Protein backbone atom coordinates (compact mmCIF):
# COMPACT_ATOMS: atom_id res chain seq x y z
CA UNK A 1 0.00 0.00 0.00
CA UNK A 2 3.06 2.15 -0.30
CA UNK A 3 2.93 3.08 3.38
CA UNK A 4 6.45 3.46 4.74
CA UNK A 5 6.90 1.83 8.12
CA UNK A 6 9.46 2.82 10.71
CA UNK A 7 13.12 2.29 9.93
CA UNK A 8 13.99 -0.83 11.88
CA UNK A 9 17.64 -1.17 10.93
CA UNK A 10 20.24 -1.30 13.66
CA UNK A 11 24.03 -1.63 13.70
CA UNK A 12 25.94 -4.10 15.85
CA UNK A 13 29.60 -3.30 15.63
CA UNK A 14 30.30 -3.05 11.91
CA UNK A 15 27.29 -5.08 10.86
CA UNK A 16 23.82 -3.91 9.99
CA UNK A 17 20.77 -6.02 10.81
CA UNK A 18 17.39 -5.33 9.17
CA UNK A 19 15.69 -5.17 12.56
CA UNK A 20 16.57 -5.57 16.24
CA UNK A 21 14.80 -8.88 16.98
CA UNK A 22 17.17 -11.84 17.13
CA UNK A 23 17.02 -15.27 18.74
CA UNK A 24 18.88 -16.08 21.96
CA UNK A 25 21.62 -18.70 21.89
CA UNK A 26 20.36 -22.18 22.67
CA UNK A 27 16.74 -21.19 22.19
CA UNK A 28 16.43 -21.55 18.43
CA UNK A 29 18.80 -24.31 17.34
CA UNK A 30 20.25 -22.98 14.11
CA UNK A 31 16.89 -21.70 12.91
CA UNK A 32 15.61 -24.69 10.99
CA UNK A 33 12.92 -25.82 13.41
CA UNK A 34 11.51 -22.30 13.87
CA UNK A 35 11.47 -21.70 10.13
CA UNK A 36 8.51 -24.05 10.02
CA UNK A 37 6.54 -21.40 11.98
CA UNK A 38 7.78 -18.14 10.46
CA UNK A 39 10.22 -16.98 7.81
CA UNK A 40 13.57 -17.17 9.57
CA UNK A 41 14.96 -14.51 7.22
CA UNK A 42 12.43 -11.98 8.49
CA UNK A 43 14.07 -11.44 11.86
CA UNK A 44 17.31 -9.60 12.59
CA UNK A 45 19.43 -12.72 13.01
CA UNK A 46 19.55 -16.22 14.43
CA UNK A 47 21.96 -16.60 17.31
CA UNK A 48 22.91 -20.25 17.27
CA UNK A 49 23.20 -22.71 20.10
CA UNK A 50 26.73 -22.34 21.53
CA UNK A 51 29.04 -24.47 19.41
CA UNK A 52 31.87 -26.45 20.92
CA UNK A 53 34.90 -27.79 19.10
CA UNK A 54 33.91 -31.43 19.61
CA UNK A 55 30.52 -33.16 19.72
CA UNK A 56 29.08 -32.88 23.22
CA UNK A 57 26.43 -35.14 24.75
CA UNK A 58 25.39 -32.61 27.37
CA UNK A 59 23.89 -33.32 30.78
CA UNK A 60 21.64 -36.18 31.90
CA UNK A 61 17.87 -35.75 32.07
CA UNK A 62 15.78 -34.35 33.71
CA UNK A 63 17.05 -31.23 32.05
CA UNK A 64 14.26 -28.82 32.82
CA UNK A 65 11.74 -27.74 35.43
CA UNK A 66 9.04 -25.13 35.19
CA UNK A 67 9.16 -22.31 37.77
CA UNK A 68 6.90 -19.26 38.31
CA UNK A 69 7.06 -17.29 35.04
CA UNK A 70 10.27 -19.06 34.20
CA UNK A 71 12.07 -22.33 33.78
CA UNK A 72 15.26 -23.94 34.96
CA UNK A 73 17.34 -25.78 32.40
CA UNK A 74 20.62 -27.54 32.16
CA UNK A 75 21.35 -28.88 28.71
CA UNK A 76 25.12 -28.74 29.10
CA UNK A 77 25.54 -27.37 25.60
CA UNK A 78 24.76 -30.59 23.79
CA UNK A 79 25.68 -30.29 20.17
CA UNK A 80 27.36 -31.91 17.21
CA UNK A 81 30.51 -29.80 17.30
CA UNK A 82 31.35 -26.69 15.30
CA UNK A 83 32.41 -28.44 12.10
CA UNK A 84 29.13 -30.22 11.66
CA UNK A 85 27.38 -26.93 12.28
CA UNK A 86 29.48 -25.13 9.69
CA UNK A 87 29.00 -27.86 7.09
CA UNK A 88 25.37 -28.71 7.70
CA UNK A 89 23.44 -25.99 9.53
CA UNK A 90 25.05 -22.71 8.56
CA UNK A 91 24.71 -23.26 4.80
CA UNK A 92 21.06 -24.10 5.26
CA UNK A 93 20.41 -20.89 7.22
CA UNK A 94 22.24 -18.73 4.70
CA UNK A 95 20.47 -20.42 1.80
CA UNK A 96 17.17 -19.40 3.38
CA UNK A 97 18.33 -15.79 3.48
CA UNK A 98 18.86 -15.78 7.23
CA UNK A 99 21.65 -14.08 9.16
CA UNK A 100 23.77 -15.98 11.70
CA UNK A 101 25.31 -14.84 14.93
CA UNK A 102 27.42 -17.87 15.82
CA UNK A 103 27.79 -18.53 19.53
CA UNK A 104 30.93 -20.35 20.60
CA UNK A 105 31.77 -22.15 23.83
CA UNK A 106 35.26 -23.37 24.58
CA UNK A 107 36.60 -25.59 27.30
CA UNK A 108 39.64 -23.35 27.58
CA UNK A 109 41.02 -20.07 26.26
CA UNK A 110 42.86 -21.73 23.41
CA UNK A 111 39.83 -23.63 22.27
CA UNK A 112 37.86 -20.38 22.05
CA UNK A 113 40.55 -19.15 19.68
CA UNK A 114 40.29 -22.23 17.49
CA UNK A 115 36.50 -21.95 17.42
CA UNK A 116 36.75 -18.32 16.39
CA UNK A 117 39.20 -19.19 13.62
CA UNK A 118 36.91 -21.84 12.16
CA UNK A 119 33.79 -19.68 12.37
CA UNK A 120 35.65 -16.72 10.96
CA UNK A 121 36.81 -18.79 7.99
CA UNK A 122 33.24 -19.73 7.11
CA UNK A 123 31.41 -17.51 4.66
CA UNK A 124 28.48 -15.37 5.58
CA UNK A 125 28.56 -15.23 9.39
CA UNK A 126 27.24 -11.91 10.76
CA UNK A 127 28.88 -11.97 14.20
CA UNK A 128 30.57 -14.24 16.72
CA UNK A 129 29.09 -14.39 20.21
CA UNK A 130 31.39 -15.58 22.98
CA UNK A 131 29.55 -17.56 25.64
CA UNK A 132 31.47 -16.66 28.78
CA UNK A 133 29.21 -18.80 30.98
CA UNK A 134 31.38 -21.83 30.34
CA UNK A 135 33.24 -23.61 33.12
CA UNK A 136 36.77 -22.30 33.43
CA UNK A 137 39.04 -25.34 33.79
CA UNK A 138 41.57 -23.15 35.61
CA UNK A 139 39.12 -22.09 38.35
CA UNK A 140 37.33 -23.93 41.18
CA UNK A 141 34.47 -26.18 40.07
CA UNK A 142 31.34 -24.32 39.10
CA UNK A 143 33.19 -21.09 38.18
CA UNK A 144 32.65 -19.68 34.72
CA UNK A 145 34.94 -17.45 32.72
CA UNK A 146 32.39 -14.69 33.33
CA UNK A 147 32.99 -14.95 37.07
CA UNK A 148 36.48 -13.49 36.62
CA UNK A 149 36.84 -10.33 34.53
CA UNK A 150 40.50 -11.13 33.76
CA UNK A 151 39.77 -14.62 32.52
CA UNK A 152 36.81 -13.36 30.52
CA UNK A 153 39.01 -10.72 28.95
CA UNK A 154 41.58 -13.35 28.04
CA UNK A 155 38.89 -15.30 26.19
CA UNK A 156 37.59 -12.24 24.38
CA UNK A 157 41.10 -11.15 23.43
CA UNK A 158 41.84 -14.57 21.96
CA UNK A 159 38.57 -14.70 20.06
CA UNK A 160 39.08 -11.20 18.71
CA UNK A 161 42.59 -12.03 17.50
CA UNK A 162 41.37 -15.17 15.72
CA UNK A 163 38.40 -13.47 14.09
CA UNK A 164 38.81 -11.62 10.83
CA UNK A 165 38.45 -7.88 11.12
CA UNK A 166 35.01 -6.61 10.19
CA UNK A 167 33.33 -9.58 11.83
CA UNK A 168 31.98 -8.29 15.18
CA UNK A 169 32.78 -10.17 18.36
CA UNK A 170 30.07 -10.01 21.03
CA UNK A 171 30.80 -11.02 24.63
CA UNK A 172 27.86 -12.74 26.29
CA UNK A 173 27.67 -11.77 29.95
CA UNK A 174 25.82 -13.19 32.92
CA UNK A 175 24.00 -11.32 35.69
CA UNK A 176 25.26 -13.41 38.58
CA UNK A 177 28.89 -12.38 38.42
CA UNK A 178 30.90 -10.54 41.06
CA UNK A 179 30.90 -7.22 39.21
CA UNK A 180 28.98 -6.94 35.99
CA UNK A 181 30.11 -3.46 35.04
CA UNK A 182 33.76 -4.36 35.57
CA UNK A 183 33.25 -7.49 33.48
CA UNK A 184 31.66 -5.47 30.69
CA UNK A 185 34.53 -2.96 30.70
CA UNK A 186 37.13 -5.73 30.64
CA UNK A 187 35.48 -7.38 27.68
CA UNK A 188 35.26 -4.13 25.77
CA UNK A 189 38.89 -3.35 26.50
CA UNK A 190 39.81 -6.83 25.31
CA UNK A 191 38.23 -6.08 21.97
CA UNK A 192 34.55 -6.96 22.20
CA UNK A 193 32.57 -4.98 19.62
CA UNK A 194 29.36 -5.53 21.52
CA UNK A 195 27.87 -7.24 24.56
CA UNK A 196 25.02 -9.70 24.94
CA UNK A 197 23.22 -10.02 28.24
CA UNK A 198 21.97 -11.75 30.22
CA UNK A 199 22.59 -15.46 30.25
CA UNK A 200 20.48 -17.64 32.53
CA UNK A 201 20.81 -17.07 36.28
CA UNK A 202 21.91 -19.98 38.46
CA UNK A 203 19.04 -21.33 40.53
CA UNK A 204 17.42 -24.49 41.81
CA UNK A 205 14.07 -26.13 42.27
CA UNK A 206 13.41 -29.14 44.44
CA UNK A 207 10.79 -31.70 43.61
CA UNK A 208 9.02 -32.06 46.94
CA UNK A 209 7.74 -35.52 46.03
CA UNK A 210 11.18 -37.03 45.60
CA UNK A 211 12.92 -34.38 47.76
CA UNK A 212 15.59 -34.21 45.07
CA UNK A 213 16.66 -31.26 42.91
CA UNK A 214 14.28 -31.08 39.95
CA UNK A 215 17.02 -30.92 37.32
CA UNK A 216 19.91 -33.32 37.22
CA UNK A 217 23.04 -31.79 38.68
CA UNK A 218 21.15 -29.60 41.13
CA UNK A 219 21.67 -26.07 39.88
CA UNK A 220 20.11 -25.04 36.58
CA UNK A 221 19.83 -21.83 34.65
CA UNK A 222 16.76 -19.70 35.28
CA UNK A 223 15.26 -18.01 32.23
CA UNK A 224 11.98 -16.48 31.14
CA UNK A 225 9.92 -13.42 32.15
CA UNK A 226 10.77 -14.01 35.82
CA UNK A 227 14.29 -12.67 35.18
CA UNK A 228 13.32 -9.76 32.95
CA UNK A 229 13.71 -7.12 35.68
CA UNK A 230 17.21 -8.43 36.43
CA UNK A 231 18.09 -8.33 32.75
CA UNK A 232 16.71 -4.83 32.19
CA UNK A 233 18.64 -3.64 35.24
CA UNK A 234 21.86 -5.17 33.88
CA UNK A 235 21.41 -3.60 30.45
CA UNK A 236 20.67 -0.25 32.06
CA UNK A 237 23.75 -0.32 34.26
CA UNK A 238 26.09 -1.47 31.52
CA UNK A 239 24.73 1.01 28.98
CA UNK A 240 25.30 3.74 31.54
CA UNK A 241 28.92 2.62 31.98
CA UNK A 242 29.79 2.04 28.29
CA UNK A 243 27.12 3.93 26.32
CA UNK A 244 28.98 3.64 23.02
CA UNK A 245 28.98 -0.18 23.03
CA UNK A 246 26.04 -1.94 21.37
CA UNK A 247 24.19 -4.41 23.57
CA UNK A 248 21.94 -7.32 22.66
CA UNK A 249 19.48 -7.36 25.53
CA UNK A 250 17.66 -10.51 26.56
CA UNK A 251 15.95 -12.21 29.45
CA UNK A 252 12.24 -12.93 29.42
CA UNK A 253 11.28 -11.02 26.31
CA UNK A 254 7.69 -11.95 25.48
CA UNK A 255 6.12 -9.04 23.62
CA UNK A 256 6.93 -6.03 21.49
CA UNK A 257 6.61 -3.86 24.60
CA UNK A 258 9.42 -5.84 26.18
CA UNK A 259 11.63 -4.98 23.19
CA UNK A 260 10.82 -1.30 23.83
CA UNK A 261 11.75 -1.78 27.48
CA UNK A 262 15.16 -3.31 26.70
CA UNK A 263 15.94 -0.70 24.06
CA UNK A 264 14.97 2.11 26.41
CA UNK A 265 17.33 0.59 28.96
CA UNK A 266 20.15 0.68 26.42
CA UNK A 267 19.93 -2.36 24.15
CA UNK A 268 20.50 -1.97 20.42
CA UNK A 269 19.04 -5.39 19.62
CA UNK A 270 16.86 -7.70 21.67
CA UNK A 271 16.84 -11.49 21.76
CA UNK A 272 13.90 -13.82 22.28
CA UNK A 273 14.84 -16.92 24.24
CA UNK A 274 12.57 -19.08 26.37
CA UNK A 275 9.46 -17.54 24.82
CA UNK A 276 10.24 -19.41 21.59
CA UNK A 277 9.71 -22.64 23.52
CA UNK A 278 6.19 -21.70 24.54
CA UNK A 279 5.36 -19.85 21.35
CA UNK A 280 7.29 -21.04 18.29
CA UNK A 281 6.08 -18.02 16.30
CA UNK A 282 7.24 -15.64 19.02
CA UNK A 283 10.07 -13.94 17.16
CA UNK A 284 7.83 -12.94 14.28
CA UNK A 285 5.03 -11.87 16.61
CA UNK A 286 7.37 -9.82 18.80
CA UNK A 287 8.81 -8.09 15.74
CA UNK A 288 5.30 -7.28 14.49
CA UNK A 289 4.21 -5.96 17.89
CA UNK A 290 7.37 -3.90 18.18
CA UNK A 291 6.81 -2.38 14.74
CA UNK A 292 3.23 -1.55 15.63
CA UNK A 293 4.31 0.00 18.92
CA UNK A 294 6.75 2.25 17.08
CA UNK A 295 4.04 3.28 14.65
CA UNK A 296 1.55 3.95 17.44
CA UNK A 297 4.08 6.23 19.12
CA UNK A 298 5.19 7.84 15.89
CA UNK A 299 8.80 6.74 16.34
CA UNK A 300 10.40 6.79 12.89
CA UNK A 301 13.66 5.01 13.68
CA UNK A 302 14.00 2.07 16.03
CA UNK A 303 17.60 3.03 16.76
CA UNK A 304 16.39 6.27 18.34
CA UNK A 305 14.95 4.32 21.25
CA UNK A 306 18.33 3.06 22.44
CA UNK A 307 18.92 4.31 25.96
CA UNK A 308 15.78 6.46 26.03
CA UNK A 309 15.17 5.75 29.72
CA UNK A 310 18.51 7.23 30.72
CA UNK A 311 18.82 10.76 31.90
CA UNK A 312 18.08 12.76 34.97
CA UNK A 313 16.09 10.97 37.59
CA UNK A 314 16.74 7.49 36.30
CA UNK A 315 20.22 7.22 37.74
CA UNK A 316 20.75 4.54 40.28
Amino acid at each position, binding site marked *: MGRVGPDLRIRLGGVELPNPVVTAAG*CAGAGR*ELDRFFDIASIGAVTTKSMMLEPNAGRPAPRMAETPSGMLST*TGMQGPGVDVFLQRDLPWLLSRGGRAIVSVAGTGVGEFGELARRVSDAEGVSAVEVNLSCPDPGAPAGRHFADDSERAAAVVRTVRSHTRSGLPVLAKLAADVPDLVALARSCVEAGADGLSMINTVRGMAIDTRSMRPAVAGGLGGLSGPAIRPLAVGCVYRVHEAVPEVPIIGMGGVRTGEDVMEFMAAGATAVAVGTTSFSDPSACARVLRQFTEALEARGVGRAADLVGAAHGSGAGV
Partner: protein
Amino acid sequence: MSDNGPVQIRCPVLNVRRVDAYYAITVVAPGIAERFRSGQFVTVGVGGDHSSTLLRRPFAVHDVKPDYGGTVEFLFSVRGTGTAWLSERRSRDLLDVVGPLGRPFPLPRDPVNCVLVGGGSGGAPLFPLAQSLRRRGCRVDFVLGGASADRVFSALSARRIAETAAFTTDDGSFGTRGRVTDVLGRVIEEARSDAVYACGPMEMLRAVTAVAGSRGVPVQVAVEETMACGTGICMTCVVPVVGGDGITRMARACVDGPVFRGEQVRFDDVGTIPFDALGAPGWKGSSAARAAESARDIA
Protein backbone atom coordinates in the same frame (compact mmCIF):
# COMPACT_ATOMS: atom_id res chain seq x y z
CA MET B 1 8.57 -22.03 6.07
CA SER B 2 7.70 -25.49 4.90
CA ASP B 3 4.20 -26.68 4.13
CA ASN B 4 3.89 -30.05 5.76
CA GLY B 5 5.44 -29.14 9.09
CA PRO B 6 3.48 -28.38 12.23
CA VAL B 7 1.26 -25.33 12.55
CA GLN B 8 0.33 -23.13 15.48
CA ILE B 9 -3.34 -22.22 15.74
CA ARG B 10 -5.77 -20.76 18.22
CA CYS B 11 -8.55 -23.29 18.00
CA PRO B 12 -12.00 -23.27 19.49
CA VAL B 13 -12.84 -26.06 21.89
CA LEU B 14 -15.67 -28.16 20.50
CA ASN B 15 -16.26 -30.08 23.69
CA VAL B 16 -14.74 -31.40 26.89
CA ARG B 17 -15.92 -34.81 28.12
CA ARG B 18 -15.09 -37.01 31.06
CA VAL B 19 -14.10 -40.52 30.07
CA ASP B 20 -13.51 -42.62 33.17
CA ALA B 21 -10.49 -41.10 34.93
CA TYR B 22 -9.69 -38.95 31.90
CA TYR B 23 -10.82 -35.79 30.19
CA ALA B 24 -11.20 -35.70 26.43
CA ILE B 25 -10.93 -32.35 24.67
CA THR B 26 -11.86 -31.92 21.03
CA VAL B 27 -10.67 -28.81 19.23
CA VAL B 28 -11.45 -27.57 15.74
CA ALA B 29 -8.05 -27.52 14.04
CA PRO B 30 -8.23 -28.33 10.33
CA GLY B 31 -4.56 -27.49 9.72
CA ILE B 32 -3.49 -30.03 12.30
CA ALA B 33 -6.05 -32.66 11.41
CA GLU B 34 -5.05 -32.74 7.75
CA ARG B 35 -1.35 -33.12 8.52
CA PHE B 36 -1.69 -35.65 11.32
CA ARG B 37 -0.26 -39.15 11.21
CA SER B 38 -0.71 -41.57 14.09
CA GLY B 39 1.84 -41.37 16.87
CA GLN B 40 2.20 -37.63 16.54
CA PHE B 41 1.32 -35.25 19.33
CA VAL B 42 0.20 -31.67 19.94
CA THR B 43 1.32 -29.14 22.54
CA VAL B 44 -1.15 -26.85 24.24
CA GLY B 45 -0.57 -23.51 25.95
CA VAL B 46 -2.09 -23.48 29.43
CA GLY B 47 -3.26 -20.83 31.86
CA GLY B 48 -3.94 -17.97 29.47
CA ASP B 49 -1.84 -14.99 28.46
CA HIS B 50 -0.85 -13.92 31.95
CA SER B 51 -0.24 -17.33 33.39
CA SER B 52 2.88 -18.01 35.43
CA THR B 53 3.09 -21.46 33.82
CA LEU B 54 4.94 -20.73 30.62
CA LEU B 55 5.46 -24.08 29.02
CA ARG B 56 3.14 -25.88 26.66
CA ARG B 57 1.83 -29.32 27.64
CA PRO B 58 2.29 -32.22 25.19
CA PHE B 59 -0.54 -34.67 24.46
CA ALA B 60 -0.81 -37.53 22.03
CA VAL B 61 -3.58 -37.16 19.48
CA HIS B 62 -6.31 -39.69 20.20
CA ASP B 63 -8.63 -39.03 17.31
CA VAL B 64 -8.94 -36.91 14.21
CA LYS B 65 -12.30 -36.37 12.49
CA PRO B 66 -13.35 -34.52 9.34
CA ASP B 67 -16.15 -32.54 11.09
CA TYR B 68 -15.94 -28.74 10.92
CA GLY B 69 -13.07 -29.03 8.46
CA GLY B 70 -11.06 -31.18 10.83
CA THR B 71 -11.10 -31.80 14.57
CA VAL B 72 -8.43 -33.16 16.87
CA GLU B 73 -9.09 -34.94 20.15
CA PHE B 74 -6.66 -35.60 22.98
CA LEU B 75 -7.14 -37.22 26.37
CA PHE B 76 -5.50 -36.50 29.65
CA SER B 77 -5.61 -37.12 33.33
CA VAL B 78 -5.25 -34.22 35.77
CA ARG B 79 -1.71 -34.22 37.16
CA GLY B 80 -0.73 -30.65 37.97
CA THR B 81 -1.62 -27.07 37.23
CA GLY B 82 -1.72 -27.34 33.45
CA THR B 83 -4.01 -30.32 33.18
CA ALA B 84 -6.21 -28.92 35.98
CA TRP B 85 -6.64 -25.75 33.95
CA LEU B 86 -7.37 -27.73 30.78
CA SER B 87 -10.03 -29.75 32.57
CA GLU B 88 -11.90 -26.49 33.24
CA ARG B 89 -12.12 -25.46 29.59
CA ARG B 90 -15.55 -25.18 28.00
CA SER B 91 -16.95 -25.23 24.47
CA ARG B 92 -15.93 -22.20 22.44
CA ASP B 93 -12.96 -21.32 24.65
CA LEU B 94 -9.85 -20.86 22.51
CA LEU B 95 -6.76 -23.02 22.96
CA ASP B 96 -3.34 -22.30 21.51
CA VAL B 97 -2.36 -25.62 19.91
CA VAL B 98 0.80 -26.57 17.99
CA GLY B 99 0.95 -29.73 15.96
CA PRO B 100 1.24 -32.26 14.63
CA LEU B 101 4.65 -32.79 16.19
CA GLY B 102 7.12 -35.65 16.18
CA ARG B 103 7.77 -38.67 14.02
CA PRO B 104 4.71 -40.85 13.46
CA PHE B 105 4.55 -44.62 13.87
CA PRO B 106 6.01 -46.28 10.79
CA LEU B 107 3.33 -48.37 9.12
CA PRO B 108 4.00 -51.81 7.63
CA ARG B 109 3.78 -52.06 3.88
CA ASP B 110 2.03 -55.43 4.05
CA PRO B 111 -1.07 -56.56 5.93
CA VAL B 112 0.74 -58.02 8.91
CA ASN B 113 -0.45 -58.81 12.45
CA CYS B 114 0.12 -56.01 14.94
CA VAL B 115 -0.33 -55.91 18.69
CA LEU B 116 -0.82 -52.50 20.27
CA VAL B 117 0.21 -52.12 23.91
CA GLY B 118 -0.82 -49.11 26.01
CA GLY B 119 -0.38 -48.17 29.66
CA GLY B 120 -2.77 -45.61 31.18
CA SER B 121 -3.17 -42.52 29.02
CA GLY B 122 -0.47 -44.06 26.82
CA GLY B 123 -3.30 -45.94 25.16
CA ALA B 124 -4.44 -42.75 23.43
CA PRO B 125 -2.16 -42.67 20.36
CA LEU B 126 -2.82 -46.34 19.64
CA PHE B 127 -6.40 -45.72 18.51
CA PRO B 128 -5.66 -43.69 15.39
CA LEU B 129 -2.83 -46.16 14.76
CA ALA B 130 -5.24 -49.08 14.98
CA GLN B 131 -7.44 -47.44 12.40
CA SER B 132 -4.56 -46.82 10.01
CA LEU B 133 -3.43 -50.41 10.40
CA ARG B 134 -6.93 -51.74 9.80
CA ARG B 135 -7.21 -49.64 6.68
CA ARG B 136 -4.08 -51.41 5.42
CA GLY B 137 -5.62 -54.76 6.16
CA CYS B 138 -3.51 -55.51 9.22
CA ARG B 139 -4.79 -57.63 12.06
CA VAL B 140 -4.86 -55.54 15.25
CA ASP B 141 -4.80 -56.89 18.79
CA PHE B 142 -4.88 -54.67 21.86
CA VAL B 143 -3.29 -55.02 25.26
CA LEU B 144 -4.26 -52.16 27.55
CA GLY B 145 -3.22 -51.74 31.16
CA GLY B 146 -3.80 -49.30 33.96
CA ALA B 147 -3.68 -48.88 37.70
CA SER B 148 -7.40 -49.55 38.02
CA ALA B 149 -10.47 -50.14 35.83
CA ASP B 150 -11.11 -46.42 35.26
CA ARG B 151 -7.53 -45.95 34.02
CA VAL B 152 -7.74 -48.62 31.37
CA PHE B 153 -8.17 -46.59 28.32
CA SER B 154 -11.23 -46.92 26.01
CA ALA B 155 -11.74 -50.64 26.51
CA LEU B 156 -14.93 -50.55 24.45
CA SER B 157 -13.37 -48.98 21.36
CA ALA B 158 -10.46 -51.37 21.67
CA ARG B 159 -12.83 -54.32 21.58
CA ARG B 160 -14.64 -52.83 18.63
CA ILE B 161 -11.57 -52.13 16.51
CA ALA B 162 -9.38 -55.09 17.38
CA GLU B 163 -9.47 -58.77 16.73
CA THR B 164 -8.82 -59.37 20.43
CA ALA B 165 -8.38 -57.04 23.36
CA ALA B 166 -6.72 -58.00 26.65
CA PHE B 167 -6.79 -55.82 29.73
CA THR B 168 -4.70 -55.71 32.88
CA THR B 169 -5.00 -53.67 36.06
CA ASP B 170 -2.62 -53.35 38.98
CA ASP B 171 -5.48 -53.87 41.43
CA GLY B 172 -7.29 -56.54 39.44
CA SER B 173 -10.44 -54.41 39.23
CA PHE B 174 -10.66 -55.12 35.49
CA GLY B 175 -9.15 -57.82 33.28
CA THR B 176 -6.09 -59.68 34.49
CA ARG B 177 -4.42 -58.48 37.70
CA GLY B 178 -0.88 -57.48 36.80
CA ARG B 179 1.05 -55.74 34.07
CA VAL B 180 0.58 -55.61 30.33
CA THR B 181 3.73 -57.67 29.94
CA ASP B 182 2.16 -60.49 31.94
CA VAL B 183 -0.21 -61.17 29.03
CA LEU B 184 1.74 -59.78 26.10
CA GLY B 185 3.71 -62.97 25.37
CA ARG B 186 0.55 -65.01 25.15
CA VAL B 187 -1.14 -62.46 22.88
CA ILE B 188 1.86 -62.36 20.56
CA GLU B 189 1.80 -66.11 20.29
CA GLU B 190 -1.92 -66.50 19.82
CA ALA B 191 -2.18 -63.68 17.32
CA ARG B 192 1.07 -64.65 15.59
CA SER B 193 2.02 -60.98 15.79
CA ASP B 194 4.58 -59.60 13.37
CA ALA B 195 4.98 -56.21 15.07
CA VAL B 196 4.40 -54.55 18.42
CA TYR B 197 3.53 -50.89 18.98
CA ALA B 198 3.69 -49.55 22.52
CA CYS B 199 3.08 -46.31 24.36
CA GLY B 200 3.22 -45.65 28.09
CA PRO B 201 5.68 -45.09 30.93
CA MET B 202 9.36 -45.72 30.24
CA GLU B 203 9.40 -48.77 32.55
CA MET B 204 6.58 -50.37 30.61
CA LEU B 205 8.24 -49.66 27.27
CA ARG B 206 11.40 -51.31 28.51
CA ALA B 207 9.51 -54.42 29.59
CA VAL B 208 7.47 -54.58 26.37
CA THR B 209 10.64 -54.28 24.33
CA ALA B 210 12.16 -57.15 26.30
CA VAL B 211 9.13 -59.43 25.85
CA ALA B 212 8.84 -58.70 22.14
CA GLY B 213 12.60 -58.92 21.64
CA SER B 214 12.77 -62.35 23.21
CA ARG B 215 10.26 -63.50 20.60
CA GLY B 216 12.05 -61.76 17.77
CA VAL B 217 9.17 -59.38 17.11
CA PRO B 218 10.11 -55.77 16.28
CA VAL B 219 8.70 -53.05 18.56
CA GLN B 220 7.95 -49.40 17.98
CA VAL B 221 7.71 -47.42 21.21
CA ALA B 222 6.39 -43.88 21.77
CA VAL B 223 8.16 -42.28 24.75
CA GLU B 224 6.95 -39.48 27.04
CA GLU B 225 9.91 -37.33 28.19
CA THR B 226 9.49 -33.94 29.84
CA MET B 227 9.50 -31.39 27.03
CA ALA B 228 10.02 -27.66 27.26
CA CYS B 229 9.43 -26.84 23.59
CA GLY B 230 8.21 -29.88 21.67
CA THR B 231 9.69 -28.44 18.49
CA GLY B 232 13.32 -29.49 18.74
CA ILE B 233 15.03 -26.29 19.86
CA CYS B 234 15.54 -26.64 23.61
CA MET B 235 17.39 -29.99 23.95
CA THR B 236 15.67 -30.84 27.24
CA CYS B 237 13.80 -33.99 26.14
CA VAL B 238 16.72 -36.24 25.33
CA VAL B 239 16.83 -40.03 25.47
CA PRO B 240 19.88 -42.18 24.66
CA VAL B 241 19.18 -43.90 21.33
CA VAL B 242 21.50 -46.11 19.24
CA GLY B 243 21.50 -45.13 15.59
CA GLY B 244 21.69 -47.39 12.58
CA ASP B 245 25.42 -46.65 12.59
CA GLY B 246 25.81 -48.12 16.06
CA ILE B 247 26.51 -44.73 17.60
CA THR B 248 24.46 -43.71 20.66
CA ARG B 249 23.12 -40.19 20.49
CA MET B 250 21.14 -38.14 22.97
CA ALA B 251 18.09 -37.97 20.73
CA ARG B 252 15.32 -35.42 21.15
CA ALA B 253 12.11 -37.21 22.02
CA CYS B 254 10.10 -34.42 20.41
CA VAL B 255 11.50 -34.40 16.88
CA ASP B 256 13.71 -37.47 16.62
CA GLY B 257 10.89 -39.32 18.43
CA PRO B 258 8.57 -39.72 20.22
CA VAL B 259 8.47 -42.99 18.24
CA PHE B 260 11.67 -45.04 18.26
CA ARG B 261 12.46 -48.65 17.54
CA GLY B 262 12.33 -50.27 20.95
CA GLU B 263 15.67 -52.01 20.74
CA GLN B 264 17.37 -48.73 19.85
CA VAL B 265 16.37 -47.00 23.07
CA ARG B 266 18.94 -47.61 25.80
CA PHE B 267 16.34 -47.99 28.53
CA ASP B 268 18.91 -48.88 31.18
CA ASP B 269 20.65 -45.60 30.56
CA VAL B 270 17.64 -43.28 30.49
CA GLY B 271 18.39 -40.39 32.86
CA THR B 272 22.13 -40.69 32.26
CA ILE B 273 24.59 -39.84 29.52
CA PRO B 274 25.96 -43.25 28.51
CA PHE B 275 29.73 -43.22 28.64
CA ASP B 276 30.02 -44.08 24.96
CA ALA B 277 27.37 -41.69 23.63
CA LEU B 278 28.36 -39.25 20.91
CA GLY B 279 30.17 -36.43 22.71
CA ALA B 280 30.20 -38.14 26.10
CA PRO B 281 33.44 -38.39 28.06
CA GLY B 282 34.08 -41.95 26.83
CA TRP B 283 33.29 -41.23 23.22
CA LYS B 284 36.26 -41.21 20.88
CA GLY B 285 35.49 -38.88 18.06
CA SER B 286 36.56 -40.22 14.68
CA SER B 287 36.45 -38.09 11.59
CA ALA B 288 34.29 -40.79 10.00
CA ALA B 289 31.68 -40.47 12.72
CA ARG B 290 31.79 -36.73 12.39
CA ALA B 291 31.32 -36.95 8.66
CA ALA B 292 28.36 -39.25 9.20
CA GLU B 293 26.95 -36.72 11.64
CA SER B 294 27.20 -33.87 9.25
CA ALA B 295 25.31 -35.81 6.61
CA ARG B 296 22.39 -36.49 8.96
CA ASP B 297 19.35 -34.36 8.65
CA ILE B 298 18.00 -32.79 11.77
CA ALA B 299 14.25 -32.99 11.43
